[in-house]
């Protein structure tokens, strides 16, 4: 691959890169967050958001305003921006965008299958699906009873098809198997995305590969943490870890044997990147703090992506930063609506 993206990147993708940098500049600032934290009700939050780039996005919402409605409208706004980028993109950026949407598609598929298990109507769930992960065969997902069914009947034409290789089985989809399916699909997807970025080479690989490596390792840690005290066996757990991160192969093998938080911490201490993260967790409520610290590190990496030009990572980074912003706003809104303000400042500032 001929290096030197600065010579020909702008021909195909310059317009979109300019656009995404403009969008990035309109993310909420520290001052905006300080204003939001001082709100007393969700109506105040709506008024404050009107002064930001969000504008009147809640104008059509009927009373009463709930946190769930705010979240849905924010997602729709991100989706509109993303669709605009996607419609104006050329290859290979279009494939990159498709890869980005696959993670939301996986979430939607799992949401639909869980809904089928709980005997919910498809319409009810479709409303709550992530708009970025929409695909035409969504409504048919709930008829499938085994993963092979799901693949052959529904998902074979979608971008998710290549990720089903390890997941084909005849086991009926109950809660345990749905969880295994979710994680295995995500593992295949992440590894495929990593390979795509690596093969593309150039600045995109330099930016995206470390980000995806961290994502893979972060998932491995979180899967391990959440599997303590559940019926998931250690062998099953190991099959869920994505292998495109720094922890592969020795770290993942050690992680699969871990039985509590301290053993997990000892595995992390072998790696220069993860040791300081675990040290910041300290003692006490380790799990929630670890999640927060991982998100903080992710935000830092995504912000740094904007320091280089002529690569696709800016689009991925923008989507992830926007997601974090939505998480922040939802957190602040929940603290306000529950009148539980002690931890309201646990949001992660971005700009």
């Amino acid at each position, binding site marked *: 691959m001929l290096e030197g993206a600065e010579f020909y990147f702008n021909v195909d993708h310059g317009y979109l890169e300019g656009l995404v940098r403009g969008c990035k500049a309109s993310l909420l600032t520290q001052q905006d967050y300080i204003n939001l934290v001082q709100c007393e009700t969700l109506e105040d939050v709506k008024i404050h958001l009107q002064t930001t780039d969000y504008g009147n996005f809640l104008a059509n919402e009927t009373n009463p305003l709930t946190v769930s409605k705010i*979240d849905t409208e924010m997602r729709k706004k991100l989706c509109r921006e993303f669709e605009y980028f996607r419609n104006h993109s050329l290859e290979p950026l279009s494939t990159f965008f498709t890869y980005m949407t696959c993670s939301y598609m996986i979430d939607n598929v799992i949401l639909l299958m869980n809904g089928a298990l*709980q005997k919910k109507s498809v319409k009810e769930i479709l409303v709550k699906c992530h708009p970025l992960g929409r695909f035409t065969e969504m409504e048919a997902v709930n008829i499938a009873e085994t993963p092979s069914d799901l693949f052959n009947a529904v998902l074979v034409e979608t971008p998710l098809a290549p990720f089903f290789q390890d997941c084909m089985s005849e086991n009926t989809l109950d809660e345990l198997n749905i969880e295994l399916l979710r994680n295995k699909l995500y593992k295949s997807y992440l590894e495929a995305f990593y390979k795509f970025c690596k093969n593309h080479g150039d600045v995109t690989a330099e930016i995206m590969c470390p980000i995806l490596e961290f994502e893979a390792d972060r998932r491995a840690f979180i899967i391990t943490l959440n599997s303590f005290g*559940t019926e998931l066996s250690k062998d099953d757990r190991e099959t869920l870890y994505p292998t495109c991160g720094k922890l592969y192969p020795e770290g993942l093998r050690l992680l699969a044997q871990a039985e509590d938080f301290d053993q997990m911490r000892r595995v992390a201490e072998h790696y220069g990147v993860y040791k300081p993260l675990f040290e910041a967790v300290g003692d006490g409520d380790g799990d929630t703090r670890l999640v927060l610290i991982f998100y903080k590190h992710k935000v830092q990496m995504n912000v740094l992506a904007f320091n280089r030009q002529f690569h696709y990572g800016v689009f991925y980074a923008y989507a992830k930063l926007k997601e974090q912003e939505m998480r922040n706003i939802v957190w602040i809104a929940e603290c306000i609506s529950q009148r539980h303000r002690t931890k309201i400042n646990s949001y992660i500032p971005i700009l």
Partner: protein
Amino acid sequence: MAAPGLRAQMDSLLLQLLRDLEELEAKRAALNARVEEGWFSLSKARYAMGAKSVGPLQYASRMEPQVCVYTSEAQDGLQKVWVVRASAQTPEEVGPREAALRRRKGLSRTPEPESSPAPRDPLNWFGILVPHSLRHAQASFREGLQLAADMASLQIRIDWGQSQLRGLQEKLKQLEPQSA
């Protein structure tokens, strides 16, 4: 004279009533704290899992209760309220209690014992690998349930105490004009 004896009775009743009220207030504050904690842990779980992953989509509109409320008459004729997990195989009191418990759970005493499937943990509605904040939420709500049952029993005792006190006051009024 019956009056001093009556007064002594009234005093002890009043003291007991005040003690019960204090306990009720404490339990109410504890229940509020548990429920608040539970909802806050749910918000933390939403932060980790995604806002739509912990919500009404995850549970069925009709569900089997895991915990049942039972009442019983204690020695002093007062009703006591308690909560029992539906999967508990051994009833807390043997004897006449057994029949009532069995009836409630729907298990028949007929020769062919049909064991109902073990009730599924509601935690699994959200997946197998759930964050610990969701487990904390479940634990907080469970403690809250127990507190609610205790509060109901206390409330019954307080009402009874109040009516007793009123009865004694009436008796005292009747005695006083006579002795005066």
